[in-house]
């Protein structure tokens, strides 16, 4: 995993592209390879009250991968300086549980909409046998500082 995140705001999607709409910008990141780690999974499970016991990968564990450096860079660029993300909606779907000490490929897509100002991050997690799980995160983009004058 390397390289700078591609420009997001400059890659406007044509309105003839299925699923796109005016004021929407789409970006697909290059595939990212990860390996699940036993200690990281255990720490995550402990903090989220998991009942799955040893070697259990919590359903929401893939949210960690939204903070991988390339993804974080692309998200920060999409948000813009002086803005913060507020989590508005979340979807998870899984075909099978993630496994410990297992290799996966991550396919990220970011969709930035102007009105309303939202960033949607989609992730598909696959291994050599196919899709394991997917998630969609919807972030409302808010100014980092509100005008609190009377």
């Amino acid at each position, binding site marked *: 995993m390397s390289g700078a995140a591609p420009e997001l705001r400059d890659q406007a999607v044509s309105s003839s592209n299925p699923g796109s709409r005016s004021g929407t910008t789409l970006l697909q990141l290059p595939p990212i390879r990860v390996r699940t780690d036993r200690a990281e999974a255990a720490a995550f499970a402990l*903090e*989220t009250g998991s009942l799955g016991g040893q070697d259990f990968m919590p359903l929401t564990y893939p*949210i960690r991968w*939204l903070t*991988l450096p390339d993804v974080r860079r692309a998200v920060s660029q999409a948000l813009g300086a002086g803005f913060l993300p*507020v989590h508005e*909606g*979340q979807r998870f779907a899984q*075909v099978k549980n993630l496994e410990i000490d297992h290799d996966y490929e991550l396919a990220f897509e970011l969709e930035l909409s102007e009105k309303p100002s939202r960033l949607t991050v989609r992730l598909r997690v696959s291994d050599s046998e196919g899709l394991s799980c997917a998630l969609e995160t919807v972030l409302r983009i808010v100014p980092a500082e*509100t005008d609190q004058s009377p």
Partner: protein
Amino acid sequence: MREAQAVSTADGAPNTGDAIGVVEYGPFSTAALARYALVSGDDNPLHLDLAVAQAAGFAANPVQGMLMLACFEPYLMNWRKDLFIARLSAKFLRPVFSGESIRLSGRVLRVRQAELTLRLTARNGRDEMVILAEAAALIPSQRSD
């Protein structure tokens, strides 16, 4: 994370309308928010820095939405240990702040063979709905084919 009340477990075939029970999670201390930031990588200062939260118009640090949403998995697994959660979707309706707890509740909306559709909610201490969620869950032991 501390549960204030255990949910009653079920092992028979679930029916439409069945209640899952009520379980309280929290309170979510600032230390818990910091620990979740560490294990999840979500170090958004909104959750961790009071000055940043106040500058953004919040009275206190809002709890990470994913920390609250993660509670639904143990909540459901406590109800039925044989569940496989195929889908979980949620809308975060209002913020929950550090020091507050949430109460999860749920109901079986629909039963179709081995697949359950579940309506789930989280409410704050003022009984305001803070998360509205829906899950699709499979019960392998109930599969007829």
